[in-house]
């Protein structure tokens, strides 16, 4: 059999070898299959891969310094920043020349802004230099530049320029985890605890997201159980109550929580009416972490209920009946038979809620006050307000890393194959 196959080539009716003919047919169907997914592939590339790559590049990109101050960066290399002396005349001459060119291209303020992230004052230093350099026409440039602003006569100024003159920088990542590079020594120092922001925010984001995920599970499990076990006719009506808030605008839901939870709000008024609290004891339930947790639990609840519901729907009721008829206490039957079958839905719901929660920013911004804001609020701030896109990107990359880490962890513990969305 083996020898026969090796020696004779199987031919199709028209005489071409079967192998070739098969490959041709397969290639055609592959091309068709590929062209059908091509739009999706292109969409994912444009809407997902390109921006993420862009973000990764932006978080470490520092070419601006070399581009705007090319000569200065070159001649600064030979200056020993630890010598305790100012750079030579040649460096000052290069700086004056670079600023003149940058001024003509209206770029001198961009470099000021970049270096201002590392050391306050560079913004005005370069803006002022842009106004003054045109008067500096002949050497000695050193004296003239220092005369225009005495900060040029400080060693630290030049140390910062040299320290951050590389093509790439880790400055944004260091800032994103509350560290800073000391310009004179090059050492990485951690910020004092009173000035640290981002590590605390990352930690808070994860803790509150975990709490929200847990709460949606506690509230969502009985609801899903009810929906999955009652007759379809009733459950179809009830599921509208789950979906209706889901279809309501996020802002509407968030602001209605403000009306409910605020100190002069419905819940506080009710508690005073029934005498549980006094007029002076109105509870602060909004503009703090409580507000964020309550509002986000409500908003994310459908993401927990729907996967759990669809998984519970597939568990035959006969399982429980069998367990009980074999002598198990109903609670034991539930715990040993029913619950393990729902794990796939719980896993899917939890990971959905957790990952959505960790990147949420509108609701925390509106109801979070100062103790209930998330890391995403800082990212949004740096992208749209302060325009420090490098730092915003670095924070985004770290957040992406955390989400991926959780995903891998989940895969190890529960197994991603066990996840069921329905």
């Amino acid at each position, binding site marked *: 059999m083996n020898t026969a196959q090796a020696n004779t080539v199987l031919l199709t009716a028209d005489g071409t070898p079967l192998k070739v003919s098969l490959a041709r047919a397969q290639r055609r169907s592959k091309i068709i299959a590929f062209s059908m997914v091509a739009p999706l592939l292109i969409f994912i590339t444009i809407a997902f891969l390109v921006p993420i790559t862009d973000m990764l590049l932006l978080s470490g990109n520092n070419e601006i310094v070399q581009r705007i101050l090319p000569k200065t960066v070159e001649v600064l290399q030979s200056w020993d920043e630890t010598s305790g002396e100012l750079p030579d005349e040649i460096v000052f001459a290069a700086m004056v020349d670079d600023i003149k060119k940058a001024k003509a291209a209206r770029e001198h303020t961009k470099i000021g802004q970049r270096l201002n992230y590392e050391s*306050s004052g560079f913004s005005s230093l370069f803006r002022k230099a842009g106004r003054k350099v045109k008067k500096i026409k002949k050497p000695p440039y050193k004296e003239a530049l220092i005369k225009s602003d005495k900060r040029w006569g400080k060693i630290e100024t030049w140390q910062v320029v040299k320290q951050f003159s590389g093509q790439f920088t880790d400055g944004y990542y260091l800032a994103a985890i509350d560290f800073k590079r000391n310009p004179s020594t090059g050492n990485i120092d951690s910020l004092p605890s009173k000035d*640290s922001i981002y590590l605390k925010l990352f930690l808070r984001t994860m803790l509150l997201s975990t709490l929200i995920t847990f709460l949606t599970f506690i509230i969502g499990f009985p609801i899903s159980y009810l929906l999955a076990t009652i007759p379809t006719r009733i459950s179809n009506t009830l599921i509208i109550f789950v979906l209706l808030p889901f279809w309501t605008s996020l802002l509407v839901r968030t602001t209605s929580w403000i009306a409910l939870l605020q100190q002069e709000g419905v819940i506080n008024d009710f508690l005073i009416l029934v005498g549980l609290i006094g007029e002076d004891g109105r509870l602060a339930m909004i*503009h703090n972490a409580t507000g964020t947790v309550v509002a986000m639990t409500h908003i994310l609840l459908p993401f927990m209920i729907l996967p759990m519901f669809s998984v519970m729907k597939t568990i035959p009721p006969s399982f429980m009946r069998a367990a009980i008829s074999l002598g198990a206490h109903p609670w034991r039957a539930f715990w040993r038979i029913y619950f393990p079958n729902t794990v796939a839905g719980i896993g899917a719901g939890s990971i959905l809620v957790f990952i959505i929660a960790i990147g949420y920013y509108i609701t925390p911004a509106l109801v979070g006050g100062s103790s209930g804001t998330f890391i995403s609020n800082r990212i949004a701030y740096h992208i749209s307000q302060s325009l420090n896109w490098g730092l915003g990107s670095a924070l985004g990359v770290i957040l992406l890393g955390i989400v991926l880490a959780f995903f891998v962890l989940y895969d190890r513990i529960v197994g991603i194959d066990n996840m069921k969305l329905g």
Partner: protein
Amino acid sequence: MKNFMRAMMAGAVMAVIGFAGQAMATELVVVSWGGAYTASQQGAYHAPYMKKNPGIKIINDDSAGTAVAKLRAMAQAGNVTWDLIDVVAADAMRLCDEGLVEVINHDSDLAAAPDGTPASKDFGDLIVSECFVPQIVYSTTFGYRTDKVSKPMTSICDVFDTNTFPGKRSLQKSPLGNMEWALICDGVAPAKIYDVLGTSAGADRALAKLDSIKSDVVWWTAGAQTPQLLADGEVVVGSTYNGRLFSLIAEEKQPVAMLWDWQVFDLDGWVVPKGTKNKAEVMKFLKFATDTQRLADQSKFISYGPARASSAPLVGKHGKLGIDMAPHMPTDPNNAKTTILTNYEFWADNKDDLDAKFNAWLLK
């Protein structure tokens, strides 16, 4: 049948002409803040201009709040779809620094005052950037609930006095303004605040003062929040833009009064994005919209002070309520006894640093 065909033909021809007419109209996309503010611009600038120039159609885009980031992204993508943008002065300076907006020649591009004073003199010091055409002077200041205080609030330091005026306060979630007020109430001479604030110890001092009311503060991020919080009785006193407080007091008749002491002046105005497809048309509109009469007209709709000196005497009555607008202007002598003019150069240098400190303090 013949008549019917003729009617059809006529209809088709008219339709074609109609479309052609529409296609010929130049559409100018003007980005502003939305709400009452855009309405005031619509009333004072857009509507009269479109009436005079039937070929121009002005389209409002309400995304000024995120305009800086969006314009930067548009410029990077090489497709600028906006023609004119309303921004605060600090953002105008940043956009100008980044080379994203056109440099304006204030004397040749803008109308002179009726008495012939060139525009650069008429706007004076308010031209804080060579790309910026000032439009209004607004202020960030306080309003307080008259029914929830034992006596009228008259000093900015009353905000920090939780014994005499107990209750919550709403402040902007930003170091701007708050740090200046904290230092003034901590005894720093107003002329010296930016010198003090520029040092690390000064920033700590301001935060220590804010610490004394931290547990009573509701932090706002959108200008509409304080009016709502005041109306709900959630806060006793809160800061926001003066125009918002005006509509709360005069239009919605809430029991709220102004606390003008040490109001922080800021400017808002126009920038022309680089890469606009209608530069010539938009410059014509800009010249019209920033002349003396037009700036004065805007104050019929909203209580922000016109940026031209020559417009001030022309400020009249509110368009609907008929009340005299001058006493509600932040620039009115009675209201402007004590003021802080935002120090743009200082904040350009120190915003990143102070903002980080401020946010770290919030987290404590």
